[in-house]
């Protein structure tokens, strides 16, 4: 039997109308923003399944936009997010699309840039404000944004994993989960940690010469 805190029963303090459509959507948007470079001038949301069918009535569109603008799920400005984006000259677009065999509440968020490659993140809102991020720019991943998370892509070589683990343990960071997938000699690693990540650790890891891409996010509030 799961243990419930009093605040699992009375809480969370949230923006309506439903935790999977508002809080979940806002968190996917915010995680995507943390991962992406924030100089985007346009964002396209590809909405799948029940997200595609119900996004207007449930305000999922507003929550997603609020997320990519960096708002927390409890921000009362969520309902005005589309106007706020407009004021900041960020072009917003919604497209209903079949994203394949994915959770019914799934969105692909594509960031457009003037002078760099576009970037996308796919995530699903799986209920109660919980989310999972499943793809970043074509790399399959699987993490929730509930923990400090490091994402790394590197040329596969024996020893890289242990080098990264050593850097983390030298900095007193506890690994909660670590997941590695490999394709054509390129490995994608997702590491969830127990304590917040600081810049220094990222610098140390990026010094490993096989690293192609490295990014980290701290937990995204509910």
């Amino acid at each position, binding site marked *: 039997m799961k243990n419930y*805190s009093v605040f699992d*029963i*009375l809480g*969370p*303090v*949230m923006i*309506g*109308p439903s*935790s999977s459509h508002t809080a979940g959507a806002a968190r996917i948007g915010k995680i995507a923003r943390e991962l992406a470079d924030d100089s985007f001038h346009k964002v396209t949301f590809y909405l799948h399944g029940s997200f595609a069918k119900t996004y207007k*009535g449930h305000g999922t569109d507003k929550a997603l936009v609020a997320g990519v603008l960096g708002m927390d799920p409890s921000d009362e400005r969520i309902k005005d997010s589309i106007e706020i984006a407009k004021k900041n000259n960020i072009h917003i677009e919604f497209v209903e699309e079949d994203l394949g065999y994915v959770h019914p509440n799934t969105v692909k968020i594509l960031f457009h840039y003037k002078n760099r490659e576009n970037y996308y993140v796919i995530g699903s809102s799986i209920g109660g404000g919980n989310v999972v991020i499943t793809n970043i720019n074509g790399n399959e991943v699987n993490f929730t944004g509930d923990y400090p998370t490091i994402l790394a892509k590197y040329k596969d070589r024996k020893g890289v994993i242990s080098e990264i683990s050593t850097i983390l343990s030298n900095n007193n960071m506890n690994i909660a989960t670590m997941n590695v997938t490999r394709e054509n000699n390129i490995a994608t690693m997702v590491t969830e940690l127990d304590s917040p990540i600081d810049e220094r650790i990222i610098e140390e890891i990026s010094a490993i010469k096989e690293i192609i891409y490295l990014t980290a996010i701290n937990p995204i509030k509910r």
Partner: protein
Amino acid sequence: MFNKACELVKLCTDNNKKIYEIVIEKELQESNISYDQLMDRMKSILDTMKNSASSALDKSVMSVSKLTGGNAKKMQDYTNKGKTVCGEIINSAMAMALSTSEVNASMGRIVAAPTAGASGIIPAAMLTIKERFDLSDEDLIKGLFTASGIGQIIAKNATISGAEGGCQAECGAASAMAAAAIVELAGGDINQSLHAASFALINIMGLVCDPVAGLVEFPCALRNASGVANALLSADLALAGIESLIPFDEVVEAMYKVGKALPESLRETALGGVADTLTGKEVKKRFL
């Protein structure tokens, strides 16, 4: 410390304590926050509740979908006129419940209690009883711990999700939580609190979840209004000395079994009940 109501009763009677005291002790034992942090957090829950229960009373608040809204204000204006069927207490309680539901549907800030759909019931119950018995915020915070303890028992032994157990699990749970808290705040003992919680669940046992067009608006807001009335009536029944033949733990189990027996069309899929009527389907076409 407790999973079932019978264990909670034992803890209360053995230690001569109120429900809220045991719930607070349990929370301090199981989480790593201090007493002061715990109280501060519950205070901010209460503040959010007060806001949501009042902010749609003096201005019309419409939902994001534009399907519903403005009813909390209608209810409040009607209550203010003074000539109502049920009297001021029930009517203003219903107005406050509608207010939170409308704030929720308009993408305003609410406390899930225990869910967003049922978020209007507990705030309205707490504020009604505050007015009635001239209680302080500290009293209401105690009441919220009591309500939460009852909710923990329901969540653990049954469910508080409409998708799993129908609306009886959402609005029913909220009413039961509120009823138990009202009784305790009104001076009733632990057994009376549990009788009240039992009545609230029994009164709506079998209630289906059938939101029109899948939006948390109709019939959800109405069920928040009737849910707070259910909580107030159940509290009075118990305070009058009436006892539930079936103990609370068994009522919770029964509610769970009924929920499991509901077909999927009546569990939040918007494929049954009022959602599946001629008009319900028309509305759905308009919105989807």
